[in-house]
């Protein structure tokens, strides 16, 4: 993708912790997993965190704002839809 640099995410195979009702039934574990995921993303120094699932992105976006991490959650479709005239970031 022109103009974008892909940075590998450490612990990419681990769940973000949302999991639908899991986030409600096990809020503490869900939050802890979300924090781990955001900290891993933060460590890459990237500007955006891309995922293909809106639930994950909602969970991680909320976690980012609470942790005051300067990074935005981005759906893969947003990257594909962006153009040079209307860039994503």
């Amino acid at each position, binding site marked *: 993708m022109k103009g974008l640099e892909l940075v590998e995410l450490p612990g990419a195979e681990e769940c973000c912790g949302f999991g639908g009702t899991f986030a409600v*039934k*096990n*809020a*503490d*574990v869900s*939050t*802890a997993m979300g924090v781990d995921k955001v900290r891993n993303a933060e460590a890459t120094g990237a500007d955006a965190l891309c995922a293909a699932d809106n639930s994950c992105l909602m969970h991680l976006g909320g976690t980012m704002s609470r942790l005051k991490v300067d990074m935005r959650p981005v759906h893969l479709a947003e990257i594909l839809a962006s153009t040079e005239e209307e860039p994503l970031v």
Partner: protein
Amino acid sequence: MSGTSGGTYLGMPAFPEAAHDAVRDTTLRGNLRHATHTIRAKRAHAVAEVSDWAELREAGKRIKDHTLRHLDRYLVQVEETVTAAGGTVHWAADAEEANRIVAGLVRETGESEVVKVKSMATQEIGLNEALEAEGIRAYETDLAELIVQLGKDRPSHILVPAIHRNRGEIREIFAREMSEWGRPAPEGLTDSPPNSPRRPGCTCGRSSCAPRSASRAPTSWSPRPARSSSWSPRATGGCA
């Protein structure tokens, strides 16, 4: 008795409640992160060695599912092969009865101490606590189970009971508790695996039985006598 029914320890809070405090324990989380990542890396390494690991896993799953579906038949078959090999099989309807049988068998030997091998079934039925109530002291021989026992703790994983402990904590547990259980912890403990706490006087043993082939004479069924073999051949094995 602190043992249980249904696979959950009585007296333990519900998972979300326990997690509320546990996720704030940075040592615990660090221990688990380190241990699980190490295990996952080893798993990935092992999986990469065989091209058909997914099929192997599926085959294993099918065997387990089949056995569980026909457990009535296989348990009787195990009893037949164990009996043919000179062992004795005891049937227990629940945890209480199983504990009573084991306590009775130990008492029959005249001993008040028994050594155990790793067994999650006996953790679930609270065997050690039941034996203690009968004045019998049970000694764990599996290293992880021993760490859990000396730490007055609960196993946190079915295969890796002490996965939540780090080296420093284990050293501290042994240094604090080992002298009361046998001999004091040596200097430099946890630099290498410690010696087992076996000591004179332990003359009974019990062993668990998973996984077991019903069709062959069970080679690992026999109890593990620590010193004398007065216990053999009476297995009080698992399946409880």
